[in-house]
């Protein structure tokens, strides 16, 4: 185990075809990250049908590369256009856009890409080391442990997601309810179909992702009136090299951001709070906190390092436990099932070539990615010069194509439109969308784990407390679930005024 597995992975990831796939994925991903209304989750969902005929390893490399590209692309719009493409790029705009306005866009972009790369690399190394161990532990898990982990996943959305905890809870419940619609495989009974044949198949989460994130997002962006007033890129080799000379000064920020990112990131909804937390820490420990918000390079380094470390860390529970840490990872998990793989700890023993190929491709993908975005910024930024009256219908058409392709079914395109409207209303009312998607993906797994656990204990909920591992996880889950109730109480006890809530989503 260890090194030779990684070498096996590299022998798979570094074939001409898979490198080509990575380049294609990163290019498309960066474009998707730059475009409004097409985030990582959505882009992966739309491309998923195209991978059905590919070998699974190449398919996952395409989708993960797309994800890295989208993470990089988000930085371009945040810095040059002051539009955070993803919620975790919000903190990057604080100092990135002022820098670009001062003509230091090239410096800010170089810093952002380099930080992303370092944050990602840190998480990938940790995944390489810990994933096999975690998978080994997870092999001993029974249904109560798995249900407890699911509980932890969703309660951390409620406790850590920011925003209104009740609304997070509604999103989760709605996701689970939508997942339950259709045939119940265990008993063979139809649930909540009311005699409508189209409802028997249930709701596919890929269609939900495309509708909620794609159509909903595009409706929000036209509502705000799309005006792209971009700053000049000012990117050339000299700027890159000069920025690289300055960056070692921020070594502490890199390390802090990487740790925060990884720690927050392997729990769901972690990337956004991680980026804000890293920014806040950098400001607090800086000698010049007053410069933050007016174009301080460290203010770009901190959130980008953490966001990328978190984005990569979200893959850890996906490959080891079969429980995705983010909507994008959730879509990839759906891909795994479609390609005929069983997500979960068994992957490490049964499909080592797939798992290690994936892990090795994280290294190659990020190396290729950082080089490509550094060289290609002007090209990618030029995409936003395309008038919005062309981009908007194009994105809608791409979403419709993607939604239809999942099951070759027209009803899915209608669901996509409905989910689009729901996404628009939910986003405006601060209902987070990520937990809804995750609940829709994990619904059947969670229900089965709960059923099997209850059968083991003849219907008693104590099964989640009598087994040591399940008990620890369940208690942690309950702690997060009731954190929104406990925090104000704890603060009052210590005489601290209540904190303003962090932005939702993640």
């Amino acid at each position, binding site marked *: 185990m260890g090194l030779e597995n990684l070498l096996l992975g590299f022998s798979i990831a570094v074939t001409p075809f898979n490198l080509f796939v990575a380049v294609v994925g990163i290019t498309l991903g960066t474009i998707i990250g730059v475009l409004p209304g097409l985030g990582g989750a959505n882009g992966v969902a739309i491309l998923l049908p195209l991978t059905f005929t590919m070998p699974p390893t190449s398919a996952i490399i395409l989708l993960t590369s797309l994800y890295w590209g989208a993470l990089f692309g988000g930085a371009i719009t945040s810095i040059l256009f002051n539009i955070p493409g993803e919620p975790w790029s919000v903190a990057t705009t604080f100092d990135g856009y002022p820098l670009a306005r001062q003509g230091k866009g090239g410096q800010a972009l170089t810093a952002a890409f380099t930080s992303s790369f370092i944050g990602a690399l840190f998480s990938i190394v940790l995944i390489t080391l810990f994933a096999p161990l975690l998978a080994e532990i997870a092999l001993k898990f029974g249904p109560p442990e798995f249900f407890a982990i699911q509980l932890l996943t969703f309660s951390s959305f409620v406790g850590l997601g920011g925003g*209104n905890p009740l609304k997070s809870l509604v999103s989760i419940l709605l996701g*689970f309810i939508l997942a339950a619609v259709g045939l119940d495989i265990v008993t063979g009974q139809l649930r909540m179909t009311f005699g409508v044949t189209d409802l028997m198949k249930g709701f596919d989460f890929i269609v939900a992702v495309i509708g909620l994130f794609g159509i909903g997002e595009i409706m929000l962006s036209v509502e705000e009136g799309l005006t792209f007033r971009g700053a000049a890129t000012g990117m050339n080799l000299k700027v890159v090299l000069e920025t690289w000379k300055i960056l070692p000064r921020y070594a502490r920020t890199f390390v802090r951001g990487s740790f925060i990112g990884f720690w927050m990131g392997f729990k769901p909804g972690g990337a956004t709070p991680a980026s804000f937390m890293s920014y806040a820490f950098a400001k607090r420990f800086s000698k010049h906190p007053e410069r933050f918000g007016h174009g301080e390079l460290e203010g770009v380094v901190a959130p980008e390092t953490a966001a990328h470390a978190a984005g990569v860390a979200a893959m850890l529970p996906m490959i080891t436990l079969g429980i995705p840490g983010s909507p994008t990872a959730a879509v990839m998990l759906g891909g795994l099932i479609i390609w005929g793989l069983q997500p979960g700890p068994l992957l490490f023993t049964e499909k080592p070539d797939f798992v290690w190929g994936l892990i090795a491709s994280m290294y190659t993908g990020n190396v290729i990615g950082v080089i490509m975005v550094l060289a290609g910024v002007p090209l990618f930024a030029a995409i936003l010069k395309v008038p919005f*009256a*062309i981009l908007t*219908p194009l994105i809608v058409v791409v979403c419709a194509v993607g939604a239809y392709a999942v099951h070759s079914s027209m009803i899915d395109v209608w669901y996509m439109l409905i989910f689009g409207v729901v996404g628009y209303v*939910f986003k405006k009312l601060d209902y987070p969308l990520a937990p809804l998607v995750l609940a829709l993906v994990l619904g059947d797994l969670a229900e089965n784990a709960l059923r099997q656990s209850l059968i083991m204990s003849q219907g008693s909920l104590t099964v989640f407390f009598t087994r040591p591992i399940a008990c620890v996880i369940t208690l942690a889950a309950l702690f997060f679930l009731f954190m929104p109730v406990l925090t104000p109480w704890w603060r009052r006890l210590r005489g601290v005024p209540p904190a303003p809530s962090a932005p939702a989503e993640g």
Partner: protein
Amino acid sequence: MTRTADLVTAGVLLVIGLIVVGDSLRLGAGWGSDGPMSGFFPFWLGAILILVTLAIAAQAWRRGPGKPFVTREQLRPVMQVLWPAVAMVVLTGGVTLGGMTMLPGLGLYVASALYLAFYMRSVGRHRWLTVAVLSVGIPVITFLVFETWFLVPMPKGPLEAWLGY
């Protein structure tokens, strides 16, 4: 007003919760001969949903009306995206009423070409040449990528049939 929107959304979710609880009770939400029955999990989901939406409604009620949920100027561009998109989906699949084809489906490629052209011309006021090139070019590229390269079929209509696909 945001409060109204919040209350309406909570109301809709409450109704969903009631429907879920109702259907779960029909299926049986208790303990069957071989473990939890079909309605067990949805019953609790629905029940908690009802409680939480009531709490959200109470919160919204106390908070006051808030900002307008959406202004007329904001809604206009949103509807300009939404209604033509609905029309595109209708044109793609056609309309069938009681087994009778009222409107034959044009297929996704033709419908998306019409949608692209309509939006670019009516909202963007782009030149006819730009509109024509893009609204034909984009579906053709989509066709080549999906239909011929990746072999993922899209809904097709009379035009594709005439071309021999």
